[in-house]
């Protein structure tokens, strides 16, 4: 007679997935854009990236140890790595080292662990940290350098990079500036028109990512590539990215057609700022987005609307972080009102009427 251990309920078999597999696939999807960003902005960017990710892992391990658990198995789920990674991608590439450390601390401790760890947080940790940094350290967080790829003569070398990241020696003024969106915002305040402002603007370079911007957010094409791969892998669903991008594009088109001198084109909006990164990697965060397809459509559209509103009429040139956080706050509400219909019941949960047709 064969005996086995304690009884288990079905299903006895399972799909071959795990939290860490999901996280690693997202990391893999981020690779191309990250690699491109690191190459574009050189050694200082790499320093900042490593510091941010390492401190995210450190803070996660610290919190887990505080709660009296073993840190290694929790770190292996890859969620802290992903949070640090995403945060690093949204930072200005030449930001000093403490920006990365403080940001990771905010993301992991305030954004995630105080809620109870993985799966419990209300807000996206990376965006929470990014917004907190932006409000607290506006200078550091809005100083963007020109593209200065690795191994190019005018780029900072390996040694220089330490001065930039750790000693806070900022690069010469000639090589820093604002992002496209920031530039447009300042120029508008001088009552300039879009046709003047965008004389030097190249849509193609912006799409590739050859432009001033955050460490890993510049390359629209590579981020979209990673996002589409994630869609194909079934890690994310299309509802949020599509509704988000469509909403921004639609709003931008309408206003651009109405007044092309004061409202930037949808093409510019789609290729600027954190839009692609947010659409595919931030807004689709499982923990902080709604559970149902319809809810996700609403969530994505809400993000898109807020991004456009903040970019166009708000005080900040880029509103992706704020938009995501605001919609995160609305997620429980969306989930409360939008849920699937139970079989044999109507939307309100009452049993269906018998229809004998």
């Amino acid at each position: 007679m064969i005996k086995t251990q304690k009884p288990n309920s079905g299903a006895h078999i399972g799909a071959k997935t795990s939290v860490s597999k999901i996280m690693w696939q997202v990391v893999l999807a981020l690779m191309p854009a990250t690699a491109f960003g690191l190459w574009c902005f050189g050694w200082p960017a790499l320093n900042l990236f490593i510091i941010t990710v390492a401190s995210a892992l450190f803070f996660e391990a610290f919190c887990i140890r505080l709660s009296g658990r073993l840190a290694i198995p929790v770190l292996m789920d890859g969620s802290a790595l992903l949070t640090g990674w995403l945060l690093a991608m949204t930072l200005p590439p030449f930001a000093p080292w403490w920006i990365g450390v403080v940001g990771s601390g905010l993301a992991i401790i305030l954004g995630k662990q105080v809620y109870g760890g993985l799966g419990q947080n209300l807000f996206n940790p990376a965006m929470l940290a990014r917004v907190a940094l932006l409000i607290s350290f506006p200078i550091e967080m809005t100083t963007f350098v020109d593209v200065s790829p690795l191994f190019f003569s005018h780029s900072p070398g390996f040694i220089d990079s330490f001065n930039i990241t750790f000693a806070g020696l900022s690069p010469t003024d000639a090589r820093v500036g604002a992002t496209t969106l920031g530039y447009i915002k300042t120029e508008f305040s001088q009552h300039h028109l879009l046709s003047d402002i965008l004389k030097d603007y190249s849509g193609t370079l912006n799409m590739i990512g050859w432009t001033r911007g955050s460490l890993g957010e510049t390359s629209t094409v590579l981020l979209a590539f990673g996002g589409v791969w994630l869609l194909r892998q079934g890690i994310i669903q299309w509802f949020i990215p599509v509704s988000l991008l469509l909403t921004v594009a639609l709003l931008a088109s309408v206003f651009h057609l109405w007044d092309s001198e004061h409202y930037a084109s949808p093409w510019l909006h789609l290729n600027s700022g954190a839009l692609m990164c947010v659409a595919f990697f931030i807004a689709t965060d499982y923990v902080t987005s709604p559970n149902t397809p319809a809810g996700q459509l609403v969530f994505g559209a809400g993000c898109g609307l807020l991004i456009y509103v903040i970019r166009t009429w708000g005080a900040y040139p880029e509103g992706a972080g704020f938009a995501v956080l605001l919609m995160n706050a609305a997620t429980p509400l969306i989930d409360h009102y939008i849920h699937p219909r139970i079989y044999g019941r109507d939307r309100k949960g009452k049993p269906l009427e018998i229809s004998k047709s």
Partner: protein
Amino acid sequence: MLSFFSKPRIQGGVHAEQHKDATAHQPIVYSFPLPKKLYIPLQQHVGKPAEPLIRVGDKVLKGQLLAYSQGMISAPVHAPSSGVIVDVNDYPAPHPSALPIRMIVLETDGNDEWVKLCPPEDPFLLEPEDISLRVGAAGIVGLGGATFPTAVKLNMGRENHIDTLIINGAECEPYLSCDDRLMQECAAQIIDGVRLMLHGMRTERAVVAIEDNKPAAYQAMQAAALPYPSIEVRQIPTRYPMGWDRQLIRYVTGKEVPVGCRSSEVGVTIHNVGTAQAVHKAIRLGQPLVSRVVTVSGGAVSKPMNVLVPLGTLISELFAYCQVDAAHTARIIMGGPMMGDALPHTGLPTVKATSGVLALSAPELKDSAEQPCIRCASCVTVCPAGLRPVDMANNIRINQLDVAVDLGLKDCISCGCCSYICPSNIPLVQYFKYASGAVAARQQAQHKSEQTKRLMDDRNARMERIARQQLEEEQARIAAKAERERLKAEQESVA
């Protein structure tokens, strides 16, 4: 474009790995050696257990009635072989708890001698009610695993004037292939059973639904159904849980069965292919249900197969025949791997519900290291009942059972899709089964306390009434006495 807006015909579901190849390509084995002892539970069906009418020491023949059905929803039990009754007592049930239930123990004599069978000459001349009676007397229950007495279903179908009989050949559970083999090898018998059931329910139309991963079964069934235009054989997409009756009804007819209703109320009745074959045997040959085809499969089974076994055969004997490697057996499952029950040991009998017995090795099982929920909502996506397993489980975890009930706990069909898909290995179905049990226990306790309170109130009222009556009688007595004395005084004064 219009179809985009119409109601989806399949909701949720998963594409589980099939694992059917190990058994689906070899014929059913009919040479299983007759066990020395058969353990026949008196309850192998939904409803009341059967009541034994034999005594220890009685000699019985194969197919002889051992226990008769009791009440409206019940089914009789017959002797799976000839021999002597050696015990009627409590033995471990084929259930995760293996708690003892009443069983008849039959020591076989090896002759396997049938009792005298008396099939009708032409069953289509029988009254439909007669078909139901014979099906009921043969002890036939739903062989897909639900084990609802088939005769009751036939009666309900006839009374509700259903328009479609659906024959469930989906067999969506991984590993299992007994229905598949049955359809390939006994298509004519199944189709005959379907015709008899149609006759028994006075219904004109039957649809045999077979998942499209069983092309051989589909072809065999279609060939067998060709002469009968009332029977349509249809392929349906392979997607667990396609064999859930309500999912199948919605896919085949477009009708949705409201919560709390039986499918016959919307004009549809659903039976398993195995049941149809059992009906054929019961009506055409007069044979009661005494054996069934069981799939024995899994990573620890050296010779996986579909095998015809007499009911009451111990799983240990079945495993010995199929050469199950005990060292590699991590879990024994009765039924399929999605909804089946994990059994604690193999000293348990096969019953009418046993469509398969699996001996799974450790690598086949779902990893049990539970991780925190990341709200990926896969469980919401795959739930065929349209529930939100994530929210239900979260509420059950903090013992908010009422909230879980409001979220639809009672509409959960325990299909296991959510547990299957969960990347964090959260045993969601276990949560729901626990909560359902706890809610039922609580309701029972509440009912009990209400009953006690009612009895107490009744008693108080009764005592009060008695006291009042006594008081009234006392007063009446005093009044009568006073009256008597007054009369007496009057009489005296008159005198």
